[in-house]
């Protein structure tokens, strides 16, 4: 997936990564922030029970050597690593797992990881304040912990997320954890200049033998893409996440194009149509017409500069249950017009299209789509709001349609739940989608113990979504990272390309630092 790794990794050197999603890190107490930006640092300093294995495309055990699953799939018994040391030198034990997960459920604090830990039995009681301890978590011995689930899910999908990292109690309780983070990660904290950079150095007692390679990992915080471009070309940074504009430019450059890493990320971009607020959207034919009216192919090619994959349905192509035989809606304005006429809107209709300024799934796309919709008689009016307000708008339902990006992986089941009629709007059913067959299919998939059977059902649900077209399926993100020729060991992480496991990274002697 990356440059052929013929060389043997070199020890030493400094890796300079970038944090491209904004001008600062929110918090180094990784439990408090679910942002992708913060988990870049999180992956350096901290560790979670599982990791995402990009090569296999599924979660893999990280802090445990092995796991035994009970027959009903509800009880997981983990044999923990006995050589995982916190940066303060203390060895990790089962207590740390239990404490960390219990902390996340603290009912007085809003830890975003609660939504994952809640799947453990008894966690809800802690959340409600009814219990002090999560009954579903049991310490067998120092390095064995038993986890009883409340619902049948794959805990790997839950506990690889940064907000569920395992933290040392004694350090957290000191009260200045944010400025003095101590974790299990391959690099330990040295310095954080807020708004500028995070400096970390090799943790000698890291549990993977021979790793990490680099002496230092620096995260440079650079939200401004134009500036990042200059810095990358100026060899001041080793990695840079590219937007469409730069993707094209870098691809066209004979030198830069050699250092490009692409991955199909598990994000689906779409226009969400609010069936509750605008009548035409309640008609399936109208929704299909919209999918036919827009030349998404062209937009992906020209505007997104091929830095995206044409979306077919809701589940992304990187999803394990993705049906490769499905074909996206064809660009067919005539058919769109016909469908509209059948639905009773021969002259089209009007709606207001809320959008954020985002370049990949915001205003620029809307601006390109408006003329296309206009051609079939649909008059859309763009309404710009801040990205911050978008989620709120979606949750409140105060929109007619909005364009946005949704995480659609890695757990396909929970992804598809968003269209279940029992899922409230505040959770994620933004279209107010309600389809009995779909609900039934999904419920069955949840009960299915056979993975094959489950995958089958999920594929079916996804096909229903395709036909019902509750949204305009736009694209799946193609994440692109440019890296300098001396940097090795990157992995194409489809959950978030910027999240790299830095213990694998190494720089050869061409690196300009030292």
């Amino acid at each position, binding site marked *: 997936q990356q440059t052929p790794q013929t060389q043997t990794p070199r020890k030493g050197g400094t890796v300079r990564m970038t944090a491209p999603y904004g001008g600062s890190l929110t918090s180094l107490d990784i439990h408090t922030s679910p942002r992708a930006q913060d988990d870049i640092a999180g992956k350096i300093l901290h560790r979670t029970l599982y990791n995402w294995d990009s090569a296999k495309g599924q979660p893999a055990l990280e802090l445990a050597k092995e796991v035994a699953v009970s027959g009903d799939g509800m009880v997981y018994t983990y044999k923990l690593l006995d050589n995982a040391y916190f940066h303060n030198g203390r060895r990790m034990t089962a207590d740390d797992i239990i404490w960390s997960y219990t902390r996340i459920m603290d009912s007085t604090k809003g830890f975003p990881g609660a939504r994952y830990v809640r799947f453990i039995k008894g966690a809800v009681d802690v959340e409600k304040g009814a219990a002090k301890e999560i009954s579903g978590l049991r310490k067998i011995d120092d390095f064995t912990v038993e986890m009883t689930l409340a619902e049948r899910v794959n805990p790997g999908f839950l506990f690889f997320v940064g907000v569920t990292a395992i933290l040392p109690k004694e350090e957290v309780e000191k009260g200045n954890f944010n400025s003095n983070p101590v974790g299990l990660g391959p690099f330990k904290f040295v310095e954080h200049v*807020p708004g500028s950079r995070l400096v970390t150095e090799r943790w000698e007692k890291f549990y993977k033998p021979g790793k990490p390679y680099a002496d230092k990992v620096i995260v440079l915080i650079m939200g401004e893409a*134009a*500036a990042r471009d200059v810095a990358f070309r100026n060899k001041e940074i080793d990695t840079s996440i590219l937007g469409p504009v730069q993707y094209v430019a870098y691809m066209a450059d004979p030198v830069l194009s050699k250092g490009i890493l692409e991955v199909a990320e598990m994000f689906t971009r779409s226009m969400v149509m609010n069936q509750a607020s605008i009548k035409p959207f309640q008609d399936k034919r109208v929704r299909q017409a919209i999918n036919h009216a827009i030349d998404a192919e062209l937009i992906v090619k020209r505007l997104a500069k091929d830095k995206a994959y044409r979306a077919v349905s809701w589940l992304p192509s990187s999803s394990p249950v993705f049906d490769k035989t499905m074909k996206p809606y064809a660009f067919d304005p005539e058919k769109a017009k016909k469908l509209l006429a059948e639905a009773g809107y021969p002259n089209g209709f009007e709606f207001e299209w809320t959008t954020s300024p985002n370049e990949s799934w915001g205003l620029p796309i809307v601006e390109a789509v408006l003329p296309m919709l206009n051609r079939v008689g649909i008059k859309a009016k763009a309404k710009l709001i801040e990205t911050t307000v978008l989620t709120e708008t979606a949750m409140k339902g105060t929109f007619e349609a909005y364009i946005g990006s949704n995480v659609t992986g890695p757990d396909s089941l929970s992804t598809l739940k968003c269209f279940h009629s029992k899922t409230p709007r505040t959770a994620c059913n933004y279209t107010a989608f309600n389809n009995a067959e779909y609900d039934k299919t999904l419920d069955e998939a949840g009960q299915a113990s056979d993975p094959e059977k489950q995958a089958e059902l999920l594929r079916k649900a996804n096909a229903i979504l395709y036909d019902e077209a509750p949204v305009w399926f736009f694209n799946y993100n193609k994440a692109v990272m440019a890296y300098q020729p001396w940097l090795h060991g990157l992995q194409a992480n489809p959950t978030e390309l910027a999240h790299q496991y830095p213990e694998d990274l190494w720089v050869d002697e061409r690196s300009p630092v030292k």
Partner: protein
Amino acid sequence: MLLVLVRRVGNMVPTLAAVIALIFVLFSVIPGSFMSGLGDDGRTMDPAVMERMRKEMGLDQPLLERFVKYAGATVVGDLGTSFRTREPVTKLIAGRLWPSLKLTMAAMLVAMAVGIPLGFVAALRPGSLIDTASMVGAVSGLSLPKFWLGLLLMYFFALQLKWLPSFGYGDGGLTHLILPAIALGVSPLALLARTTRAAVLDVLNADFVRTARSKGMSERRVVTWHVMRNALVLVVTTVGLQFGSLMGQAVVVEKLFSWPGLGSLLVDSVFQRDIPAVQGCILVFVLFFLIINTLVDLAYVAIDPRIRYG
């Protein structure tokens, strides 16, 4: 001197109080919240967690109660707890203050070191090539969007010439400071050049300069002994106003150059709706403005005896 100080500090109090009230009211009606902002890359947030965060941040209390609490705490120097980092805002700000100050001061230094002499030279030869060129330059400097200018500087000095690093704070050394300081300093530079020119021309026409000439002084002495200080009195106001508002103006430059100052903090905080941090930053900007202007007043007192004894 002391009196002026006391009076100025006295004047600051109502201004500060008004600012505190104003920003509190402004940001209490802002749409979006820190919680909804967390979901900005498509990750949905758990409603229960969001509710808990609201409570934790005290956003469930009535507005008035919150204001009283906030104002009361502010008086004793407590700016509240940041939503994002869950640390005291004062700590957040403390970390950003020095870079901010450094950038502001460097920019002002650039502006003064170039602008004032330029204005002087221009005024001593009105209508000359130097005059015309520097004034056209000054107006042009005032007419460029800052981020564009910064970007051009970046491309030119970092990418093309490779003289300077393009972004960031580095180890706090000088090289990283130069480009942002220039980008930020250009508009006060232009204003200072123009003000200085006008002030010097003004003073050159003053009666006492004619007196000095009638004493038989050489033009150089007239300028160094009589014109400079008097012109300075007029320039100091501009210096003060510019300097005072520069920290706030730095937002764009800081953002562009990934400079870890209060401006970047403010913008990030606004977009993430970290309201306590936003309020704290604005308060610091205002305080900085007021302090600089107090210093300017003191400078006045030092330069101008009419005020000292007036």
